[in-house]
């Protein structure tokens, strides 16, 4: 690939509550990475309000794209493709990025590439670690997703395990709300847990009966809620920091346990972490330690590349571009798009 012409891609991401755009060269070099967060407004509601998110995306999308182009010092004529997250995510939110990206592709005549959001999260590792190449395993943990994935080649993914109920980040949000820490739950629990005893309360580590690597977090969440109710009935005060630390430890144990069991069975030499919950300090620390004990190379991108961003979409899009993948103008937002799913509508009638 090194002798080929540089490929510069403008990528757009609007799947949840961040409006983001980025210009990425050859999937690894980030020229700009603009993110307009809506966290202030959603905090008022204790969670993402889809209609408000969609409205905010509509207002910000052009500014964010323009800013990304200006920071990258590129014109549309200097681009090779437009990429956009087409799923999974909130459909109304996704539609803003998808509609804008299609209009940009149509207006400029550039090829269009629809990208899977999780493929983006995994690809954040390509940006952070230039030496990292497939094959490797990746644990993707975010507010909406929990996947254990084998990346056998660029654009080739095999899901080894996924959550059967709540995503890990979702459990963080719900528990944070229950113990009065508020939204967003991940960072708040992480912070509170640093002051608490992770062994103060034992919450059960759930397992899925018929699958070695699928996850379940609803049991842990329910156990926390039951504990809170019991304490309430007894009229005893809870120690928020201890509950946060004990809950977080249960989730981290499950994530690390599954990842290490899979690493042993499949013989992974490299394990990457991705997704918003990858910023969780306990998860990073304990997964790094576990990998160290087993002689596995551990990769984890910096937090700005873990939470939703468009640079990761630009990276994933580059490898799709190299594989000849192009999307048609009928590209749609697919809220439940499965990883690795080659939806014909997404790839049909590609334009270049």
């Amino acid at each position, binding site marked *: 690939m090194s002798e080929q012409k540089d490929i510069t891609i403008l990528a757009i991401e609007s799947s949840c509550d961040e409006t983001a755009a980025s210009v990425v060269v050859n999937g690894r070099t980030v020229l700009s990475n603009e993110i307009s967060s809506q966290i202030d407004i959603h905090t008022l*509601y204790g969670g993402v309000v889809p209609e408000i998110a969609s409205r905010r995306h509509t207002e910000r999308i052009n500014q964010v794209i323009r800013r990304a182009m200006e920071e990258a010092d590129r014109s549309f004529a200097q681009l090779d493709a437009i990429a956009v997250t087409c799923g999974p995510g909130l459909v109304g939110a996704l539609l803003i990025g998808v509609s804008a*990206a299609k209009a940009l592709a149509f207006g400029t005549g550039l090829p269009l590439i629809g990208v899977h959001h999780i493929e983006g999260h995994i690809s954040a590792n390509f940006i952070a670690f230039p030496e990292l190449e497939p094959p490797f395993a990746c644990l993707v943990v975010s507010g909406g997703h929990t996947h254990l994935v084998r990346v056998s080649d660029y654009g080739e993914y095999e899901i080894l395990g996924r959550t059967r109920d709540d995503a890990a980040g979702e459990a963080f949000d719900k528990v944070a709300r229950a113990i009065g820490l508020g939204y967003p739950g991940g960072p708040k629990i992480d912070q509170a847990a640093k002051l608490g005893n992770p062994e103060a309360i034992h919450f059960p580590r759930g397992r899925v009966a018929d699958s070695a690597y699928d996850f379940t977090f609803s049991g842990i969440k329910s156990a926390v809620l039951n504990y809170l109710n019991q304490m309430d009935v007894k009229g005893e005060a809870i120690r928020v920091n201890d509950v946060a630390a004990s809950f977080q430890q249960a989730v981290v144990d499950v994530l690390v346990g599954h990842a290490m069991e899979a690493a042993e069975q499949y013989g992974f030499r490299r394990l990457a972490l991705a997704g918003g919950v990858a910023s969780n300090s306990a998860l990073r620390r304990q997964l790094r330690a576990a990998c160290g004990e087993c002689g596995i190379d551990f990769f984890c991108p910096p937090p700005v590349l873990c939470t939703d961003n468009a640079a990761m979409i630009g990276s994933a899009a580059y490898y799709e571009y190299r594989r000849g993948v192009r999307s048609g103008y009928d590209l*749609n937002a697919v809220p439940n798009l499965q990883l690795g799913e080659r939806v014909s509508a997404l790839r049909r009638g590609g334009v270049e």
Partner: protein
Amino acid sequence: MKLLSIETSGQVCGVALLDGDTLTADYNVQYKKTHSQSLVPMLDEIRSMCGLELSSIDAIALTGGPGSFTGIRIGAATAKGLGLALAKPLIPVPTADSLAYNLYGTENRVICPLMDARRSQVYTGFYEFVRTENPREETAREEASQEETSREAALLLRVLRPQCAVSVEETAAALNALGREVIFLGDGAPVYRERLRELMTVPHFYAPPHLARQRAASTAALAMQFYREQGETCFVDPDSFRPEYLRLSQAERERAAGIDTSQVVRRQKTPGITVCPVSVRPISVRPMEERDVVQAAALESLCSAEPWSAEEYRASLGLSYASYYVAVVSEPSGKLRSEKLPSGKLPSGREAGEKPAGETETVVGVCGVRKLGGDGEITNVAVHPDFRRQGMARRMLERLIRDGRQNGITAFTLEVRAGNAPAIALYEGIGFRTEGVRPGFYSEPAEDALIQWLR
């Protein structure tokens, strides 16, 4: 002037190309397929069919709302992206205006587009075409030597009532009050046809299928008309354009209404993203200030057959014997409002680079009292249709009464339509009792007024 037009506000997905007075293409589809999948392929089709060089377009016209929230956003995001790619401005057209423009030539009749807004409401507006001086008078005068007088005239769309979200009952009452023939169109027309048959007292008609829905060509033609009348002031920068929803989101309404939804967990189809509102900040009630009068008048025009104007409110604020109150919803972030940004001075996309959020207050309730001796005559009580039945009027009145008693008012009185059961229940709940009747006091429709007192 060459306009590309986009129409996605309702069930129709449409694109059109208007080049001066020539409608080069007009492509509308009313079918189940999502606008998201259809819109750009349709644009691409007219581009290739008409050999359109996209860079030759001067502006992009679109219906700017109201309509389906998702639909208008698909059109908005597409128009914004296209404007960005081509460095061209947008010309947004109010959706109801665009619909009304379908019916050019219906002089003397009121045009009433109806879009189903759900929750027993319609997005509507009232329009008429009025004869105007020959727009080509200048030319005609020059040619006067050849031709004695020109018989050419033009009809211009006039807005009788700007687009709004109201109940079909209020719409019918207001149309009946106008006393003119009405033509209905839009996707709300079939939905409310039965109800309108009961409510309407003036002759009314329904537009035939080829005129009855949004059309990209009408949006384009009306945008062209805007350009001819206003020049470039009708242009909107694609970066700062925001659709007109005419409504807050459900979460904002509930929060504003003080409904504690913390136990409600909204679940999207997408697994994992949970919405769970926590502490809900209630609406605040405070004395009316100068800055509120325009909003207060606009609110009253939604609620009253004889609304006070902003000037009347402004004048009343200066009266020592009168007190007015507003209920306001604070929109949490000023950043929601897209300020028109000077070109080249775009805000950073990052939160850190942004100024602290301001608060924008929206007036959703108004009430007022005049002190006459020891009596307080309550002159206005109005609550925005979206915020009714949520205890807001009661809160405003309780504040009014508390302050009034401190200012020496010993008894309060008001008049209410005999048929306005919700209002009567509210007033009786506060302690008002009916002590008299004014027969036939109200018009449109004629109705008795109950005189109530709180002593």
